[in-house]
């Protein structure tokens, strides 16, 4: 379609901070580390955790933290890409519960031995929800916020309606496998999250389609003028986002051994918290997948330290929120740039 390369688009790619090229040297270095401003926070948390409980720094415990966060991490990955492209998707949290639930309702009816279809089917359901969101937002030109807010309710409503509000127990092994399996001594869900994040980091930094997200999020009209097929890229992002949320649902289902009627409900706040403290801008065009990943890790470590410390339930929320605020401040000071 066009010969324009993404670097020619008005919005600068993430790896170079806006001032980076002008102020060479120090500016460029700072820019390189902008997505890693949470690293000091993680270090502080690791040190504090080690003092709180000797178990904290053991391989077993840290593996648990990663496993507990892997499903959330996939939703954060999806949301980070959508936010970078300047859009919104609140319905992801409902997909986390609904996609595996529908899969479980359909699979025993149709498949005897073809349980292998379970996960592709689940991903397809998630992708379909993403595609429908994309249709309403891009073709109908409705606001992404309002559309996905409505879809969050619709999708969760569908989940409740079709399951009759019951928790689903004793699920087929095909859908349980990924969430519970161990590969080379490490839970499979960690491998999956790691591979997908690596793909996300590389894709958004070095590939044309990935860099197009920044251009679109920064200024869609300019991106269109530069020859990026904006609608097509955005639609693809919504579809991938839906599929990632569905995969998160599969991992969560395997970890918990059942699908409760409110699986995924309330996740979206954690997802936004992780993305935003990880440096992804709510206005689009800024932030990185790696940054979002550090956001997930911070949330997981805080949760773990609070549990180990045995903070009383009444106070946990307060302490939790307070720690996130402090994390934001540390990352602001360390990063040296005003938060968007």
């Amino acid at each position, binding site marked *: 379609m066009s010969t324009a390369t993404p670097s020619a688009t008005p919005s600068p790619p993430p790896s170079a901070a806006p001032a980076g090229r002008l102020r060479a040297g120090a500016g460029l270095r700072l820019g390189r580390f902008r997505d890693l401003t949470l690293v000091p926070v993680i270090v502080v948390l690791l040190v504090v955790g080690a003092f709180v409980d000797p178990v904290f720094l053991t391989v077993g415990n840290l593996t648990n933290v990663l496993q507990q966060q892997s499903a959330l991490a996939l939703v954060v990955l999806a949301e980070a890409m959508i936010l970078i492209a300047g859009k919104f998707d609140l319905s992801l949290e409902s997909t986390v519960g609904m996609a595996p639930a529908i899969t479980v309702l359909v699979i025993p009816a149709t498949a005897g031995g073809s349980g292998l279809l379970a996960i592709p089917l689940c991903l397809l359901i998630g992708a379909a929800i993403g595609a429908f969101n994309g249709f309403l937002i891009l073709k109908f030109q409705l606001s992404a916020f309002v559309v996905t807010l409505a879809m969050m309710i619709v999708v969760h409503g569908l989940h409740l309606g079709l399951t009759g509000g019951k928790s689903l127990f004793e699920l087929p092994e095909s859908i349980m496998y990924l969430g519970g399996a161990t590969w080379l001594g490490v839970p499979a869900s960690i491998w999956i999250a790691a591979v997908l994040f690596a793909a996300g980091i590389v894709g958004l930094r070095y590939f044309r389609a990935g860099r197009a997200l920044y251009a679109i999020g920064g200024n869609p009209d300019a991106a269109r003028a530069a020859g990026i097929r904006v609608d097509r890229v955005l639609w693809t992002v919504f579809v991938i986002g839906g599929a990632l949320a569905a995969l998160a649902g599969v991992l969560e289902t395997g970890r918990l051994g*059942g699908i409760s009627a409110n699986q995924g409900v309330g996740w979206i706040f954690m997802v936004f918290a992780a993305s935003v403290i990880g440096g992804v801008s709510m206005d689009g065009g800024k932030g990185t997948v790696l940054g979002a990943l550090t956001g997930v890790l911070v949330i997981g470590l805080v949760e773990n330290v609070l549990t180990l410390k045995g903070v009383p339930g009444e106070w946990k929320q307060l302490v939790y929120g307070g720690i996130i605020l402090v994390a934001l401040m540390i990352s602001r000071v360390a990063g040296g740039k005003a938060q968007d």
Partner: protein
Amino acid sequence: MRFGPVVAGAALLTIITACGSTGDDAAATGGGSGTASGGKVGIDFPRADSDFWNSYSKYVPQMAGELKVELMNPTNSQNDVAKLVANTQALVSQGAKVIVMAPQDTGAIASTLQQLENKKIPVVSVDTRPDKGKVYMVVRADNKAYGTKACEFLGEKLGGKGKVVQLMGALSSINGRDRAEAFRECMKTKFPGITVFDEPTEWEGSKAASMLQTRLEQNPDIKGVYMHAGGVHLAPTLQVLKAKGLLVQPDDPKHVFVVSNDGIPQEFDAIRKGEIDATVSQPADLYAKYALFYAKAAAEGTTFQPGPTDHDSTIISLPNGLEDQLPAPLVTKDNVDDQNLWGNQVK
């Protein structure tokens, strides 16, 4: 956007007709309750996403048929006190003479109860005890007894020493608080040698799994788990224990003793398999039965006195009404096949 208004209009129409048809279904079941004396009973269900409440909702039309109560179309307040208030007003304007509700927020319902009292409409509150405002009868199992029974069972199995985890419900719910406080209190007085770890899971399976996994990593010698709600805590707990290789028969020294609350069929299955050891059966069937029993009595103008009843329970006096404390049996391997338990009657 050429097709905008037309499509949107058609879509809206479809949605509304779809809702209408489900409404008709409900009307059909409601209408099956037949003709009865005393006036119409309006009922609101508290939520649609919990196994226990769904069982309760299923028992209601059935019991209404048996008791010959004229039941209106049930409403559902989805765990939201604002919706409950709106639903109550709608039921009253449709001619309800008695209201059955289960206010999950026991404080915020006070002014609604006041308004209903002014209109001389009696209220039966199921499962929760409103803090203020007149109620005709509270139908509820003694949630403190759940905690105490679980504590006594675990304490005995552990021989009065060791570590146990308590997976707590939301602390904003009176039932979660009652269970947690009774369990803690009983452990402190009767089994001081047992350490209790409280995990505030907010009735969420995901949090329960993470917290239990972390706690087991920190204290591999944990020997007991008390779950406040089998519906949300059972599957995650079994999954965590299985991953740790601790899901073994009760005679194995590695066995972790698990006591649950609710009494859903899946818990009974787990008890039969030896994966968990006991549960307190919260009587969904009795909740539905006696809610409607008292609703009918209220419509007929009957009054009750505190004291023992004819169905193994005790009516106690509250500042704002009466409460019938229904029995909630402890289910273990010995009585898990008892056909009188509601968990054995549903499929």
